[in-house]
């Protein structure tokens, strides 16, 4: 399974419907893995390759959430956000489409071999380039139109200014897709691109549930517009199913907050100050101590930080750097 390479053209039924409507649609696609069904919802999750821990965290959670809710995650199988969200979706039992900028027989980047194989089993790999085409820099911006084209909406997690991710966003807007952006902090270079998009009027992605609701509305709108009367029943069923899942998800997730892990235990009072000085971003012990209201020695702080790590409230990223966990 997944070993054979198929070639599909717009004249065939299997050709993704969403691609039929985009400008400059590929005249043919090489496919490996399962052929995706045209029904269902799909979201493109894209972002920086050298993402921060924050980006990684969000990509993991969003990917897993989408996977659980049977939303297909479309992405470019790149390092960083792309690969992480796809992997999370597959791990959660969902499906995913990887669109490559090289032949479908080539795993690029080579470091994502495991993801590549998993996609062959559980998802789909697409490319408009014939097998054997090496990964060329010029191919990647072009394939981005397929990434956005295959999705109903695009989520940007982290992007620097002038990031390749922004090219995908431009194409998505051209294709009339909805763009959601995960906000970052103004001091983070990795979120500059995201914040710029928000300033330009992109939707802000605050919680995954919201995304699901928006997707639902989008779906209804397209159905109304497209007048798919014959398939209305199908659509309704899908909708009910989707809503059912959403409400179920809500319950199990203890009142929203999908981003955060379940609270395990309370932080002991003597460690509270230190805990609050922690951040999602790795900080050195010196930086953390500098944020404390009281004066404690670095060695003392080090001991307390390890205590927080044992309680799973913090993570030691490297010998002298810590970040917080919720």
């Amino acid at each position, binding site marked *: 399974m997944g070993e054979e390479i198929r070639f599909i053209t717009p004249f065939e039924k299997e050709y993704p419907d969403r691609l039929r409507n985009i400008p400059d649609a590929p005249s043919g696609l090489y496919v490996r893995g399962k052929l995706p069904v045209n029904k269902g919802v799909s979201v493109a999750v894209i972002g920086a*390759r*050298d993402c*921060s*821990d924050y980006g990684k965290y969000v990509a993991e959670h969003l990917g897993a959430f989408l996977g659980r809710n049977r939303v297909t995650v479309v992405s470019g199988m790149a*390092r*960083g956000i792309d690969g992480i969200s796809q992997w999370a979706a597959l791990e959660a039992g969902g499906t995913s489409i990887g669109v490559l900028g090289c032949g479908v027989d080539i795993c690029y980047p080579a*470091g994502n071999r495991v993801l590549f194989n998993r996609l062959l089993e559980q998802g789909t790999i697409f490319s408009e380039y014939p097998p054997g085409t090496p990964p060329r820099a010029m191919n990647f911006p072009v394939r981005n139109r397929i990434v956005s084209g295959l999705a109903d909406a695009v989520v940007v997690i982290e992007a620097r200014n002038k990031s390749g991710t922004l090219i995908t966003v431009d194409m998505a807007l051209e294709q009339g897709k909805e763009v959601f952006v995960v906000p970052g902090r103004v*001091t*983070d*270079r*990795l979120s500059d691109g995201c914040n710029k998009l928000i300033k330009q009027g992109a939707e802000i992605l605050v919680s995954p549930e919201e995304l699901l609701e928006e997707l639902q509305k989008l779906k209804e709108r397209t159905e109304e517009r497209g007048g798919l009367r014959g398939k209305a029943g199908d659509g309704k069923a899908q909708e009910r199913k989707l809503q059912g899942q959403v409400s179920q998800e809500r319950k199990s997730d203890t009142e929203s907050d999908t981003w955060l892990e379940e609270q395990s235990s309370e932080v002991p009072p003597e460690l509270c100050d230190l805990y609050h000085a922690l951040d999602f*971003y*790795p900080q*050195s*012990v*010196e*930086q953390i101590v500098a944020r404390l209201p009281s004066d404690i*020695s*670095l*060695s003392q702080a*080090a*001991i307390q*930080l*390890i*205590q927080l*790590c*044992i*309680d*799973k409230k913090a993570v*030691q*990223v*490297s*010998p*002298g*750097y810590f970040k917080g966990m919720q």
Partner: protein
Amino acid sequence: MYSTVMTGALQGVSAYPVSVEVDVSPGLPTLSLVGSLSQEVREAKERVCVALRNAGFHLPAGRITVNLSPANRRKEGTAFDLPIAVGLLAAMDRIPGKRVENTLFLGEVGLDGEIKGVSGVLPIVREAVAWGVEQCIVPAANVLEGALISGIAVRGAASLQELFSFLLSEGGEGEALLPVVRLDAEKLFQEKAVEKVPDFSEVNGQETAKRGAEIAAAGFHNLLMVGPPGAGKSMIAKRIPGILPPLTLEESLEVTSVFSVAGLLREGETLATKRPFQSPHHSVSLPALVGGSTIPKPGMISLAHRGVLFLDELPEFQRAALDSLRQPLEEREIHIARVNGTVTYPSNFMLVCAMNPCPCGFYPDRNRCRCTEPQIRRYMGKVSGPILDRIDLCVELQTVDIASLKNCNKGESSGRIRERIVRARKIQKERFRGTKYQFNGDVEAADMEIFCALGEKEQQYMDQLYRNLNLSARAYHRILKVARTIADLAEAEQIMVEHLLEASFYRPAQEYWQ
């Protein structure tokens, strides 16, 4: 006519006796030198002949044979010149044979009869006591080295002329010519021990790194420092010898011997009183690091014996050179095998390494570091795993900005840190009496339960730590060893929870790299 004269040759940092046998018999005038000799020993023939003539002695026209016994061992170096010259004169009856009995000669001879300094005087004189030698005549340049050894009379000669007048003189007259030089090693040691070394109070900030260095020095753990360029890694490393306990006399003689063999004792320097600090450049070759070449010379690791070997820019070192450190780190000595035999040099050093966290130096500060994950992994991967396995402590340094440099309170002085370390070492000495270990850093996993036992509460804590920090078994043992040292520093009988916590803070970086 026949004579024999005693001398010695080096074998690593120890020595073996060599007797120079000279025979003058009638025949065609020749001089042949035998006994498995290297080029420079064979050349002694020319040097000695000319020097003797210039000193006023003419060789007889006969068949002269010189044999260096044991003849099957390879002889190297120029220290055989003097015994050959003395042997020739004794065989010619120019000096009484009685005068050269039980006397060991060492030295290179110049054409004008000058006696020049050679390397390895200290180890040879040290061993000579056991061979029943009563007096040693060594080059005047090296006499202070030899004079450290008690139980043997050591005299320094500057020229052949001087030496011969001594050998020909009778009784007290000779004493005045070449007096016995004697140095009280203990006293010298006390005097020189107060020499100034770089002090920890000069390092501002970097509290955790300094504390890490203190723990490492106390338990003889190997240390890795990670940090951007300019954070003070080398500065801290250079100060570690200053917080190690002072050298004992015995240790000092070991260090001096290695330097003497390597010919690195400076003129007038008698006894090494400071712990050595060796910092090889990362382009260092394998033989230069561990010792080698055809005549195996001690390498950097032996020169760092009883001191600190500092490897800056760890990932830049050749993998082969780093891997060669495994045996010396394990066995505390290095065996170098060559065609002419195996020599063993001591290499009981503390390993201190430094490296950048990534090619640019700023990881994990993602706002400044633009290195990709594979780049970082590749950079870290350059450090050989087996070496990381032998590093117990890891500290990370950050760049200190100028404002805090000025405001920082002065650090503790090396002297005060050293006091704590000396106390911790004393506790370890008690603990390991009668075992194969010396320090907490040496303890093997199998003996962990004996020496690093935990109370019930602490054990529970350690289990929790092991689970929640995803430790490997190896890291678990390292934390125990380091915690034992921290407890020793605090002079605590039992390892307590806070010691375990502090030890886990310093756990080695490899855990994050996997």
